[in-house]
């Protein structure tokens, strides 16, 4: 089999960049959302749960179109970001990162929420009787116990972000070097004669990334189970 060409490398590098930022920036939001869903007792919790999971159910093209409407230059948020902060999302790699983050968000939140729900609140109660404030309890008891779950969520989200296609291509199109991530590149290669071998190499890479991520998140999930069980 031939080596990767420059176009393919470009797609791989871009996918890594997009997935990295999508994961890193959604991590704190995902954790806060997971905490709110697992522990919060507030009006609209079910609604929030629904909204978080929406991208999992909606056709990706719908999510992408909604993103375009909202974050495009003519959209209310996109126009604001462009005017005030000079941040443009539409047809840029930053937009690809946003689309990937939104599509990966349900997976991330789900893994974190399961980890949080597995923590026995009695341990946190014990920590508070030992003199720990709420923040300290979170930092010294809750967070270490859910750390594997948080990591598992991040790994899954990263893999999902690497492979996001529908919402990305709808929102930011398929511009080489800017928004052509691995799936978009595979799609583009398949549109031209003789592109099959390049597409196939990227397909293999995608499968490898997905498998690695699944194994890793499984392994992390087992670790959290062992931690919680070790009482």
């Amino acid at each position: 089999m031939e080596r990767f060409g420059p176009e393919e490398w470009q797609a791989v590098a871009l996918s890594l960049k997009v997935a990295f930022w999508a994961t890193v920036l959604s991590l704190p939001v995902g954790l806060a959302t997971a905490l709110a869903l697992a522990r919060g007792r507030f009006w609209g919790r079910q609604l929030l749960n629904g909204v978080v999971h929406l991208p999992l159910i909606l056709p990706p093209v719908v999510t992408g179109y909604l993103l375009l409407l909202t974050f495009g230059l003519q959209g209310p948020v996109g126009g604001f970001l462009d005017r005030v902060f000079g941040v443009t999302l539409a047809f840029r790699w930053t937009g690809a990162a946003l689309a990937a983050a939104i599509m990966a968000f349900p997976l991330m939140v789900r893994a974190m929420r399961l980890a949080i729900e597995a923590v026995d609140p009695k341990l946190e109660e014990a920590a508070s009787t030992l003199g720990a404030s709420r923040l300290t309890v979170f930092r010294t008891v809750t967070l270490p116990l859910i750390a594997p779950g948080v990591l598992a969520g991040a790994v899954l989200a990263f893999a999902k972000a690497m492979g996001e296609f529908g919402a990305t291509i709808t929102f930011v199109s398929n511009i080489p070097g800017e928004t052509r991530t691995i799936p978009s590149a595979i799609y583009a290669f398949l549109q031209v004669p003789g592109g099959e071998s390049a597409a196939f190499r990227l397909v293999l890479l995608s499968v490898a990334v997905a498998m690695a991520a699944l194994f890793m998140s499984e392994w992390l999930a087992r670790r959290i189970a062992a931690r919680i069980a070790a009482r």
Partner: protein
Amino acid sequence: MGVSGAVREPAAGPRNRTPYGARGVTLSVQIRARLGAFDLDVGFDAPAGVTVLFGRSGSGKTSLVKAVAGLVRPDAGRIAVGGRVLFDAGAGIDVPVPQRRLGYVFQEGRLFPHLSVRDNLLYARRVTGRRGGDLDRVVDLLGIAPLLARRPGALSGGEAQRVAIGRALLSDPDMLLMDEPLAALDAARKAEILPYLERLRSETGLPILYVSHNMAEVARLATHVVVLEDGRVFRAGAAEDLLSDPSMVRVLGVRDAGAVLPARVAAQAGDGVTELAVSGGRLCLPEIEAAVGTALRVRILAQDVILATERPRAISALNILPVTVLALRRGHGPGVIVQLQAGGDRLLARVTRRSADALGLAPGKPCFAVLKSVAVAQSDIGQRLAPEG
């Protein structure tokens, strides 16, 4: 010989803590709380030492301890520990849990699974920055030195509970709250921990609020007893007074009713018998590993006491004490509970109504109490603890 328990007395000696508050009151509770369908309405003052909250399950013991710890918020009233007000509904005081400085030992240990035993013990120090207690001393007191490097998951129930006690001690608390710390353990594990609790009581002088519904634990540990019933205080008082009170029989149940007497090791006879001096005479027990002079407590169950109006002769029982009848309490059924004065202490005896009538038992009548010979339960006696002189 009816002596089903001998318990080490708190060592008389310098305590490393001064007595608390006025009149030596350590814990003062006066609260009302509505918890679902359950009403808690309790008030009592407890001196230093071990105060046992005694009552059936559902009587409100755990809710009361949680209220003291701040984990349950009463609707009204006041809670003070050692003169420090932790809760006062009228004055709007409600000290947050982390600032109450009460070491809570839970029924299920609740050790942090992600930390080693050592890090569990040092948790309070780490999060508060206070240097509470001496790690080596606590580790030594509880015999947990070999466990320090382990994870909680690798501990037995008894070991985990000892670590939990150590963790609470090292938070430098003003008082220790122990919510049935032995309830989840089997008899052997209980026997393993009780001596450590006795050492804790004698060596630290730390006041302890101890929840239990086990009479053996009460007899062994309590200096003060608060009996709860349906969320109210049924009786409260010094352990020795309360346990020899006939009105307690209804709460304790006929099988568990019995008096606790202070005793002192008078002689080691050498024939496998240890002689104990109580205020009403001498008792012989199967050998106890304790030096002459050691203060102990013996528990004598009401159902193990036989009454005679003349001193019995030619009888196998070794322990016969001259007593005077103080009071008789007839319940339902055929039994009568007789309260007896034995020297400076009180005993309870359970006899049938027919016997009471035949013997003409009445207040003021002198009798002899024959303490039946029974096997001494190891868990009831401080044998596992090396004597300290």
